């Protein structure tokens, strides 16, 4: 027996042992589920006896209560029954012999490149590819089957990893090296059931072939990142993927943003993203950080134009308003406890009079 054969035998026996252990655990789950169902059936029997007593003695109200409990028990039985079916799906699988597994390993070696066994990690690997989907080159992938967690109940994706050997990840997400891979985990989609079955039964070659079939197929309806957007970058503001032609650079923060998120400063006309723009407190127009200045009197943020034209509200306050302006606004002549003409308005705040906001300078003049 040569070394290669010994190694193969060792791996096959290990897989076989592993599967037997997990198969026994799954059968234990089946037994527990059946016991649950039987317990509930016994309770149904008890309710049936109670109903017989109620009927014999014509206790109609009590009989109605028992009927309600029987109805409830029936719905519970349906749950426990389907639970037994679910556990049977996992526990009732046929087991392949160590010899079958050995033959499978030989088949994997023949059909795939890069077949190797990592003793430290107890991982069996093959290389597939290079994969190219719709003109997007994704490179080679290593499918790494972790024998220690193989065949366990639950999600099969915990039993293996798919590692990009020559990564060409999506521009907007480094963790996505394939439309159906994220952080080395395959989103199995239609392959979920066959992968789980192959791993539970020790059909190693089938497992690798099914994973390979997913890697070489593109499902445009449900990718992590669509191939159309593969080489795009994420918009800094909204996170959507954008192509080179649909992106602009904000002159303030230097971040790239999409066409939907780019805007411009109403003062200097420079391209600026929405996050960098602020509204001038005087004219209300959007301004970039370079055009934003503070009023030397009150510290209010204004655009350059408004400051140069002395449009800050605090400057209005220092100039008395013509009397005739107040004559037309009787509301302003009635100071209220919330804000009136008692000096609070002199701080540059708006005053509230009769439910309406009135600039402080006006209240003062009233």
């Amino acid at each position, binding site marked *: 027996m040569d070394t290669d054969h010994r190694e193969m035998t060792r791996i096959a026996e290990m897989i076989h042992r592993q599967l037997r252990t997990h198969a026994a655990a799954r059968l234990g789950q089946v037994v527990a589920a059946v016991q649950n169902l039987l317990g509930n059936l016994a309770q149904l029997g008890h309710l049936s006896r109670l109903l017989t007593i109620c009927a014999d003695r014509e206790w109609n109200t009590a009989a109605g209560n028992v009927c309600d409990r029987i109805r409830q028990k029936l719905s519970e039985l349906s749950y426990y029954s389907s639970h037994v079916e679910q556990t049977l799906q996992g526990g009732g699988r046929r087991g392949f012999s160590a010899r079958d597994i050995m033959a499978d390993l030989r088949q994997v070696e023949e059909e795939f490149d890069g077949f190797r066994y990592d003793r430290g990690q107890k991982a069996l690997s093959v290389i597939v590819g290079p994969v190219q989907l719709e003109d997007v080159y994704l490179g080679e992938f290593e499918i790494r089957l972790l024998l220690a967690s193989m065949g366990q109940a639950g999600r099969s994706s915990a039993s293996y990893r798919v590692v990009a050997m020559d990564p060409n990840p999506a521009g907007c997400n480094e963790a996505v090296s394939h439309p159906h891979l994220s952080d080395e985990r395959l989103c199995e989609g239609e392959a979920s059931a*066959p992968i789980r*079955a192959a791993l539970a039964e020790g059909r190693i070659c*089938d497992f690798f072939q099914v994973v390979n*079939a997913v890697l070489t197929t593109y499902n445009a309806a449900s990718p992590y990142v669509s191939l159309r957007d593969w080489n795009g970058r994420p918009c800094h503001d909204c996170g959507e993927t954008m192509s080179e032609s649909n992106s602009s650079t904000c002159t303030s923060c230097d971040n790239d943003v999409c066409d939907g998120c780019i805007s411009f400063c109403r003062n200097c006309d420079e391209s600026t993203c929405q996050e960098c723009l602020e509204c001038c407190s005087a004219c209300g127009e959007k301004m970039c950080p370079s055009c934003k200045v503070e009023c030397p009197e009150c510290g209010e943020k204004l655009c350059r134009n408004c400051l140069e034209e002395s449009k800050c509200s605090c400057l209005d306050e220092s100039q008395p308003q013509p009397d005739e302006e107040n004559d037309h606004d009787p509301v302003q002549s009635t100071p209220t406890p919330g804000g009136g003409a008692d000096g609070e308005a002199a701080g540059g705040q708006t005053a509230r009079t009769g439910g309406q906001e009135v600039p402080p300078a006006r209240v003062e003049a009233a």
Partner: protein
Amino acid sequence: MRILFVNNDGGGFADYVEVAPGTTVEKFFCEKMPGRSASDFLLRVNRQPVARDQVLQEGDRVTATPVKIEGAHRAA
């Protein structure tokens, strides 16, 4: 006669099935996978690629694996 059929499509089951003596690979595929095209599958008999007209024998192991399987953002 009885053969082992491993179907990696759909539920991915493996089970023994009865077939009539003289059944070819192509006929077996058409019976078991109606409406499907054999060119969309990797068909193996006893782990080896075979011709469509190969006649199945007692105890053969037939494996059908789709060439293309759609992954998904959320696993089914």
